[in-house]
């Protein structure tokens, strides 16, 4: 009798995850454990480094969202050296940041999470990738995706120094000015980006929303959790990726808390489990009640779906329309269906594109004064941004020379860890019965967390490493009874 199912490791996410499904004697799921098996200790070896290097060192936590870490650190540096970011510097940061959010969301939709929908969850494995997507949407559209990302990333490279591990962020602003010519290019690219955003949403409508089966997945119990949601919002409680206040809404969608990054310690604690390297953040004011949903459990979610749930809308018109369409279709706020995250992501993608355009058109974008030189003695600084995968906290303490003495990072996927664990458990319970385990089911289990676009590289500040999915089924005596591949 099958007792123990291992999915190790999970593919097409940045980072390393592991799922253990343990069955009971009836073949039902006893518990599915979602494990993250690595740790790198960035926080430790940041100690002794000059504070300004944190922006470049922490970006190496994740090569997929280096900009998020770079920017969170840069904002923490502003705070640390008690210097306002120069307005032009802020615009330059924001253009790059929205550009990054845009292309990263595109990466996930078309390369990582998308295939499940665009190609189909049970499609042959050789097609469940970008090439499959291209096959589905046509080479022209495929090239369009690639070209779009290239354009944005090349532009960011020019402005930020590098796209993979940027260098431009400094306390008080950025290192490099934007020329008038570059501004023109930025405007052009931003315009393409907006079109691309609309194109992608249309693609979603045509290929996913039009497909009854997929919509069922999205709304099915297996992919639904009533939890708290957190995200950055601007002064109008609209979604903002770069800056703002942190807003938390309860499972009914009512504002539960709104706080400044400096209060994160009051709001968030990290719970430790002996079976995973990842720590599980929860709302301190509610408390840790285990992997439970509902308003009495401190478990909360971040990332696109959460950001939409935690906000009152988008700050840009086209995205706002999409926002409304989203909630109308799915029955109002908040939406608890994990798989709706993919849709939310495309709405953010469009919003990011629109913001890029606004910024690029701003005359101050090419200003001379890009950075304020700090004069204060550094001591402690915190910074927060909305990484594509959710809220990202950087917190540093230094000596008077600005040498780091303490670094604490709470990263996007980590904030989702508890909910991901629950999703996986729930998906497994729903999908696996009588010990019947097959690849299709397992991929759908995987979809449960892939929706979060989890980055365990980030989450554990660990060393991501990917392996094909293998399922090992153990009998009652833990002897390997059967090995299943996720083959068609």
């Amino acid at each position, binding site marked *: 009798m099958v007792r123990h199912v291992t999915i190790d490791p999970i593919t097409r996410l940045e980072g390393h995850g592991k799922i253990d499904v343990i069955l009971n004697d009836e073949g039902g799921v006893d518990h599915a454990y979602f494990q993250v098996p690595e740790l790198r200790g960035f926080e430790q070896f940041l*100690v*002794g*480094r000059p504070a300004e290097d944190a922006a470049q060192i922490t970006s190496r936590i994740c090569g997929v969202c280096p900009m998020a870490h770079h920017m969170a650190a840069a904002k923490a540096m502003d705070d640390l050296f008690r210097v306002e970011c120069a307005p032009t510097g802020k615009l330059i940061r924001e253009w790059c940041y929205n550009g990054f959010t845009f292309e990263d969301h595109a990466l996930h939709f078309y390369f990582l999470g998308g295939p499940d929908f665009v190609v189909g969850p049970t499609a042959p494995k050789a097609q469940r990738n970008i090439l499959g997507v291209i096959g589905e949407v046509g080479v022209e559209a495929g090239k369009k995706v690639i070209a779009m990302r290239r354009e944005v990333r090349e532009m960011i490279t020019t402005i930020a120094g590098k796209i993979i591990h940027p260098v431009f962020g400094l306390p008080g602003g950025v290192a490099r000015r934007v020329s008038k010519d570059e501004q023109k290019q930025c405007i052009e690219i931003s315009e393409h980006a907006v079109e691309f955003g609309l194109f992608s949403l249309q693609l979603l409508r045509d290929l996913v929303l039009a497909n009854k089966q997929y919509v069922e997945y999205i709304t099915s119990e297996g992919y639904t959790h009533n939890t708290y949601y957190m995200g950055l919002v601007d002064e109008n409680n609209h979604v903002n990726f770069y800056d703002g206040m942190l807003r938390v809404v309860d499972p009914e969608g009512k504002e539960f808390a709104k706080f400044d990054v400096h209060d994160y310690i009051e709001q968030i604690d990290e719970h430790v489990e002996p079976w995973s390297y990842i720590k599980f953040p929860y709302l301190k004011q509610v408390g840790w009640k285990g992997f439970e949903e509902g308003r009495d459990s401190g478990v909360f979610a971040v990332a696109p779906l959460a950001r939409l749930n935690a906000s009152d809308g988008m700050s840009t018109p086209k995205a706002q329309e999409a926002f409304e369409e989203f909630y109308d279709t799915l029955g109002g706020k908040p939406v608890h269906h994990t798989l709706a995250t993919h849709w939310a992501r495309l709405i953010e993608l469009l919003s990011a594109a629109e913001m890029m355009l606004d910024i690029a058109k701003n005359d101050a974008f090419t200003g001379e004064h890009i950075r304020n030189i700090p004069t204060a003695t550094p001591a402690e600084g915190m910074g927060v941004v909305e990484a594509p995968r959710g809220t990202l906290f950087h917190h540093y303490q230094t000596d008077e020379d600005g*040498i780091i003495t303490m670094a604490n990072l709470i990263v996007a996927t980590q904030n989702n860890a508890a909910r991901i664990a629950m999703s996986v458990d729930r998906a497994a319970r729903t999908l696996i019965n009588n010990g019947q385990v097959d690849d299709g089911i397992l991929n759908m289990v995987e979809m449960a967390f892939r929706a979060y676009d989890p980055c365990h590289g980030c989450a554990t500040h660990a060393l991501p490493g990917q392996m094909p999915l293998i399922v090992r089924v153990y009998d009652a005596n833990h002897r390997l009874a059967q090995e299943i591949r996720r083959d068609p």
Partner: protein
Amino acid sequence: MPDDVSLPIAEDFQPRIIAFFCNWCTYTASDLAGTSRMTYAPNTRVIRVMCSGRIDPQFVLAALRKGADGVLLGGCHPGDCHYQAGNYKCLRRFRLLKRLLTQLGIEEERVRLEWIAASEGDRVQKVTNEMVEQIRKLGPLRLEKIPTHPNGEAAPAPAEPMATATEGAVS
């Protein structure tokens, strides 16, 4: 190579010290120590360079990596360099190298810079004996044993929370 290819490191530990001496002052001084029959500890191995300015920090690290327990740099007194200023370049590098080594947890005494003039055979004797004694106290340099705090003092051997065979302190 013969079988007795390396010093027994044991109760009577013989430190291995590589000395880079400049041709004009310090090397000559150690020749003078010889002609004056000043006996001193047999633990140094002198490598002659024309000027202390030729001493590349890479040599120092290589020596330590290859098994030296200490490295002694010798040059002409400030102002006396046969090449006018090579010894100052050596000094500049040494000051920075020191900072690096300290940060990496290598004890101060293991790398030393001395100005020794051609006539100071006795200083070669004194400095060598001194250094050998200091390093004898420190014991052999085991690079594997060096995890460090940024401030440089060696980290305490960690009580590993995760009991697995392979674990040890990081170095």
